[in-house]
């Protein structure tokens, strides 16, 4: 098997030693683990296509992978298959500043594109918290969001064209360096397909002009629910902040104990970060309103980042919070769900009650403006009872979110983690439609099998020997 793959990508770029395969067994979600038979690291689109054709010829399942920062197990390998690791496809191919477009390979790291175009006064707007590590190809797969999704939209709003290796190994172009092409929106269909429709190797992305003015505020509250109410009020008053981000007390404290030290007040029950951007007069007006609202809702500290460094620190704390939570326990379960913004106070109260009930350490750090919750549970995966309680709590939290009219996932995707919960949100008919679309792209089912849609067989071992409820194996 490996001889053929080595001929395509070169010997150095096929991994099959047991120590090399071991760390590929999980992505950012370590609850699942499964080693692949081999990992292939192609260096060009043509090599990707050849590897895929080999997979088709031999009936080998394949899983595309970027930086492995995903949190829903989307890059979890298949036991009988290979992983196609795309990190070497990391070139920025073309920048058209006047068209505000760039063509990049899929392995380019999100933040590095923004760094590269900064001298042109541009940036790439979607900014997931893992943006210093995650790849743009991975962002396309997951339709990633981020704090600035509030104003600027998610990945799908910023992709205009894709060069795709389809699951049969042919190379095709979807869309292109033009906005709003006629015909079916296949780019929109592909973005968010979680690696099940093929492998996007080159992307045409929109670049966004850097705003003239950016102002970032910190508001600290004694009560998380009050902070949530302030969020609803800001939106209700017609203000459109660039970002509205919430951190609860547990998160604040671990961030302050880490290298990130953002300067959040450790005695607060919640910190709300509000970023306003645009032209000076508008931002000034919004800032005045937001400050007044904060006073009304009882913020005990209101502060504006005085310098660019201070602003960066406030953001670094927010974006590194997930990693910082590693200080609390060996493992971390990151939940991702969306609820209507107005229901945030109630949902958070219920989520806290669930954690208390199961005797678990809970932390909340989330995109409040979008109602996109991330309740995180710290646990020790070596303790089966602990794991069982975490999974039960995770399930109850999800049920609560769905009950108030929310959704399964805001930005982390369905992947392997929530595959079997899909039927709680969608009818059998809906799921069947989804499967039909997928079959149109991926008729043999070799491309990232078993993910997103329920019903397929599972080719994965559960790390703790306990399956998430509803998963058969």
């Amino acid at each position, binding site marked *: 098997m490996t001889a053929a793959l080595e001929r395509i990508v070169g010997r150095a770029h096929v991994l099959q030693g047991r120590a090399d395969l071991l760390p590929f067994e999980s992505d*950012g979600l370590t609850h699942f683990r499964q080693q692949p038979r081999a990992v292939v690291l192609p260096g060009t689109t043509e090599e990707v296509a050849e590897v895929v054709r080999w997979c088709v010829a031999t009936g080998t399942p394949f899983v595309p992978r970027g930086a492995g920062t995903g949190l829903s197990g989307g890059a979890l390998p298949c036991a009988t298959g290979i992983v196609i690791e795309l990190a070497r496809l990391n070139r920025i191919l073309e920048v058209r500043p006047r068209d505000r477009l760039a063509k990049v390979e899929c392995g380019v790291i999100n933040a590095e594109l923004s760094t590269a175009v900064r001298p042109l006064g541009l940036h790439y707007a979607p900014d997931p918290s893992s943006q210093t590590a995650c790849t743009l190809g991975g962002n396309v797969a997951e339709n990633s969001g981020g704090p600035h999704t509030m104003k600027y939209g998610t990945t799908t709003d910023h992709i205009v064209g894709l060069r795709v290796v389809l699951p049969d190994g042919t190379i095709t172009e979807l869309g292109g360096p033009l906005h709003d092409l006629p015909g079916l929106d296949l780019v929109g269909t592909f973005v968010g397909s979680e690696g099940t429709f093929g492998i996007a190797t080159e992307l045409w992305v929109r670049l966004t002009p850097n705003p003239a003015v950016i102002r970032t505020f910190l508001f600290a509250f004694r009560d998380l629910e009050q902070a949530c109410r302030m969020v609803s009020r800001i939106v209700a008053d017609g203000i459109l902040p660039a970002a509205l981000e919430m951190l609860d007390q547990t998160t604040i404290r671990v961030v302050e104990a880490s*290298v990130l030290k953002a300067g959040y007040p450790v005695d607060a029950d919640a910190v709300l970060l509000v970023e306003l951007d645009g032209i000076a007069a508008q931002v000034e007006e919004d800032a005045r309103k937001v400050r007044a609202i904060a006073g009304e809702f009882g913020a005990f500290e209101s502060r504006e980042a005085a310098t660019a460094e201070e602003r960066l620190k406030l953001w670094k704390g927010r974006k590194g919070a997930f990693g910082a939570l590693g200080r609390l326990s060996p493992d971390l379960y990151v939940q991702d769900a969306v609820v209507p913004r107005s229901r945030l106070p109630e949902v958070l109260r219920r989520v806290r009650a669930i954690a208390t009930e199961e005797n678990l350490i809970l932390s909340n750090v989330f995109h409040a403006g979008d109602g996109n919750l991330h309740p995180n549970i710290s646990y020790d995966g070596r303790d089966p009872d602990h794991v069982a309680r975490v999974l039960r709590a995770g399930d109850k939290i999800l049920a609560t979110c769905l009950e108030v009219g929310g959704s399964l996932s805001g930005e982390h995707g369905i992947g392997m983690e929530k595959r079997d919960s899909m039927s709680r949100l969608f009818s059998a008919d809906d799921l069947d439609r989804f499967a039909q679309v997928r079959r149109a792209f991926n008729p043999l089912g070799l491309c990232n099998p078993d993910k997103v849609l329920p019903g397929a067989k599972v080719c994965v071992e559960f790390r703790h020997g306990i399956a998430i409820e509803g998963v058969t194996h």
Partner: protein
Amino acid sequence: MDAHEKILLDQRALDCVHCGLCLPVCPTYRLTGNEAASPRGRIYLMRAFAEKRMEPAVDTIGEVDKCLVCRACETVCPSGVQFGEMMELTRDLVEATPARGGFARRVKRLFFRHVLPHPARVRWLALLLRFYRESGLRFLLQKLGLIELFGAKTVLRDRLLPAIPPLAERVEPPERTAALGQPRGEVGFLVGCVAHELLPGANRASIAVLAENGFAVRCPTSRPCCGALPSHFGDLEAARSLARQTIEAFGEGSDPVVVSSAGCGSAMKEYGRLFAHDPQWAERAKRFAARVVDWNEFLAAKGLVAPQGRLDLKVAYSEPCHLAHAQRISAAPKSLLAAIPGVTLVPFSGSDTCCGAAGLYNVTQPEQSLQLLGQKMEQLKGAAPDLIVTANPGCHLQLRSGASDALPGVEVLHVAELLERSYRAGAKSGDASGAKAS
């Protein structure tokens, strides 16, 4: 590996939540795109060793050897994983298993346990290498194809073998150097083992600049080796033995121990950890470590006596990993350089990324080492400096070898050497103007 160390490794590995933020700053991950060559992948492997999911064996320790231990991952880790410590413990564990071939292990042990502790033997080794390099023996061996017989063939053949200064240049620094001008205190100074033989100029300048700033400098005549190399390369026992010698050489006291080699300074600041489980030495090592201060850190904190000599130069500062990442000192050396009249610091991307020297990495992993050096040179070319400055002997030698190819005519100096030049130039022009006035 002791039981408590195994537990420690286990606990350290558990700090990692697998977020992956370390990947983009890891030089070996950037070269390969391979998760197994990333900090997160290596932590995963080390945890597997500690939990006995996988045993250290010839086919599983490759990435343990290929890690630079540059610790760039620690600087970005939100979870505070002590990666360097984990890797040191793991390498020590690996050395004790059959995974490590007998010959390589014996050579390393010989060097760490029987050469490094004796300055005279280090000197003999340096002389031998100088003879090999300069006498034509290298040329002869190369012609005869005999070099292939040696394990470290690339190094022996290649430019990475540093030029070794003639014996005459390697003058022992005096045991005590008096302060110049207004006295501001007394400090101990680590002369070091290899640095003294290969880069005597950097030590001389470090001492001179301290004296210029009003500090009397004391150098123990036994010239101990701090043990950084064995602790990075899997021989913690040898490291402890050298550390004990070092602690004893400086004696009890409260005066600062100033170190101008980033790798040594980093190891010495971590002595407390090295002896954490040794009841006899734990306290003493901790006390000593608290006295250790990096040369740049020390002078920047004390306030520099302004150098007067103008040096119109564009200077690129290549940050040693063991200064920027292991000791988190980045602003201090830059502020010292900026204090020199006429010097312009030219920033370049990758200035805090490993140059591939990494202790003995250029000997053990010459291919990756040369790739990293090549990258560094490309980035430096973009900045087009007149001079490259660094603050660690390994980086110094590596950058010098790279620059001799890629940036001919561009000299590599220690921060102290450039400062000393400015002080000297200042003194000369001061003398000249003084003469005129009188």
